[in-house]
C-alpha cells in the first residue's frame, strides 16, 4: 500500500494532482499569516515595527533545518530500500532547503542591522545556519558533479547522512565557541510573545511548509520525466496530445 506510490510511474500523476492543492494552501496561509503578522499583531514595545521580520525569518530558519532532516530520511530510504523515488525527492528538496536557509540568513541580517547595529554578529544561530547552507551547497555540488545517476544518488544520500549526524555537533560547537568569545546571543523576539504573534508565526510556518511541498512535487515531476524519458510510460505520456 505504502510502496504503491514509491514507483515513479505512479507517483508522477499523484504529484501532479497534489502540487496545485499545496500551492493553493500555501497562498492562502501566506495571505492570512502576513495579514496577522503585519496588521493584527501589536507593535513590539522594545523593537518597534522591525521585529515583524521574524514572521518570515523564524519560519524560514525552521524550514531550512526541517528540510535537511526530511532529506536525511529520504537518504535512509534510498540506501536501505534502494528506492529511486527517495533519491529523486532529495534532489527536488535540496534547492528549496537552500533557499529557505538563505532567506533565514538574509532576513536575519536585515533584522540585525536596526536591532544590534550590525548585519552580521557571529551569533551562534546565524553561524550554524550559515554552515547548514554550506551543507546544502555541498550536496548539490556533489549531485551535480557525478555523471552516473545511480552513483550520484547513493553518494548524495551517504553525504546527507554524514551531514545530519554532524548538524547537532556543529550547532553545539558553535554555541560553545560563542559563549567562549562572549559574542552576541540573541533570543528571537522578547521572551513574552503576544498570542497573535505566535499564531502568525505558526501560520507562516505552515504556509512555507505547504510551499516547500508544492515546489518539491513540481520539481520531482520534472526529475521523473528527465530520468525516465526512455521508459514506455513516459513515451506514451509525451505522445498523448
Amino acid at each position, binding site marked *: 500500500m505504502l510502496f504503491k506510490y514509491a514507483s515513479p510511474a505512479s507517483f508522477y500523476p499523484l504529484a501532479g494532482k497534489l502540487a496545485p492543492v499545496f500551492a493553493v494552501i500555501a497562498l492562502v496561509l501566506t495571505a492570512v499569516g502576513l495579514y496577522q503578522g503585519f496588521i493584527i499583531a501589536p507593535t513590539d514595545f522594545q523593537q518597534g515595527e522591525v521585529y515583524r521580520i521574524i514572521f518570515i525569518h523564524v519560519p524560514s530558519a525552521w524550514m531550512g533545518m526541517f528540510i535537511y532532516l526530511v532529506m536525511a530520511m529520504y537518504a535512509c530510504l534510498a540506501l536501505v530500500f534502494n528506492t529511486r523515488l527517495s533519491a529523486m525527492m532529495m534532489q527536488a528538496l535540496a534547492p528549496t532547503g537552500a533557499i529557505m536557509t538563505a532567506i533565514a540568513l538574509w532576513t536575519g541580517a536585515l533584522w540585525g542591522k536596526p536591532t544590534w547595529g550590525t548585519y552580521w554578529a557571529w551569533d551562534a544561530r546565524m553561524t550554524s545556519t550559515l554552515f547548514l547552507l554550506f551543507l546544502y551547497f555541498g550536496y548539490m555540488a556533489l549531485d551535480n558533479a557525478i*555523471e*552516473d*545517476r545511480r552513483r550520484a544518488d547513493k553518494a548524495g544520500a551517504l553525504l546527507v547522512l554524514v551531514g545530519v549526524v554532524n548538524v547537532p555537533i556543529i550547532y553545539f560547537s558553535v554555541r560553545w565557541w560563542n559563549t567562549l568569545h562572549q559574542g552576541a546571543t540573541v533570543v528571537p523576539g522578547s521572551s513574552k510573545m503576544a498570542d497573535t504573534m505566535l499564531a502568525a508565526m505558526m501560520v507562516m510556518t505552515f504556509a512555507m511548509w505547504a510551499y516547500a511541498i508544492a515546489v518539491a512535487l513540481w520539481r520531482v515531476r520534472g526529475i521523473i520525466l528527465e530520468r525516465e*524519458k*526512455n521508459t514506455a510510460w513516459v513515451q506514451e505520456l509525451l505522445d498523448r496530445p
Partner: protein
Amino acid sequence: MLSAAGLTCQRGDAVLFRDLGLELAAGEALLVRGPNGSGKTSLLRILAGIAAPAAGEVRWRASPDRAARQLETAYQGHTAPLKDELTVVENLDFALALDGAPKSRADILDAVQEVGLASRRNLPARHLSQGQRRRVGLARLVLARRRLWLLDEPATALDAAGLTLFCDVLDRHLAQGGLAVLSTHQPLPLAHPARELNL
C-alpha cells in the same frame, strides 16, 4: 558452479544487455565477445560482484552470497593494478596479501621466473611495458590460486610468447577444475574447448 540469470545492465540511459543468463561448470571457460561498449567489462564486474546489476542475480555454488563468491574469485580489469613506485616483487607481495594468500619470497620469485620477468623482478613497475604488466598479473593468478578467473582483455599487449604462456596457464587452470570468464577480441589458441557468448 557459476550461474547467472536475468542479468540486466544499464549505464546511464543505455541498456547494455538485458535478461542475460549463463551457466559455467568446473573446468569450463567462457569467452565473451562483442564490439566496444557492448558491456563486456560491465558483465565481468557484475560477475565479480563489484557492480550490481540493474536486475538479475549471480550465483556461485548455488548461493547468491557475494562475499563467499569473492573469496574464490580473481578479477583482472583492463588496467594492471600496479604501483609505479614499487618493484615487481613488492607489487605481487601486496596483491597476494590483499588476496589473503600471502606467499613466501621464494614462491613469488618462482612465479616471476615462470612468467619471464626474472630479470625485472626488482625494477619499479614504472619501467615495465604493457605486456610485462600483464605478465605480472599472470604471476598473481598463478600464485593466488583462486577458483574463478574473471579476466578483462587478458590477451591485449601480450607478444606471441606471452600469448602462448597465458594460454598454457589458463589450460592448466581449467585442467585443475578451475573456471574462467574472459573478454577478448582475438582468437586464443587454447587446448581446452571454450564456450562463447556474444554481446
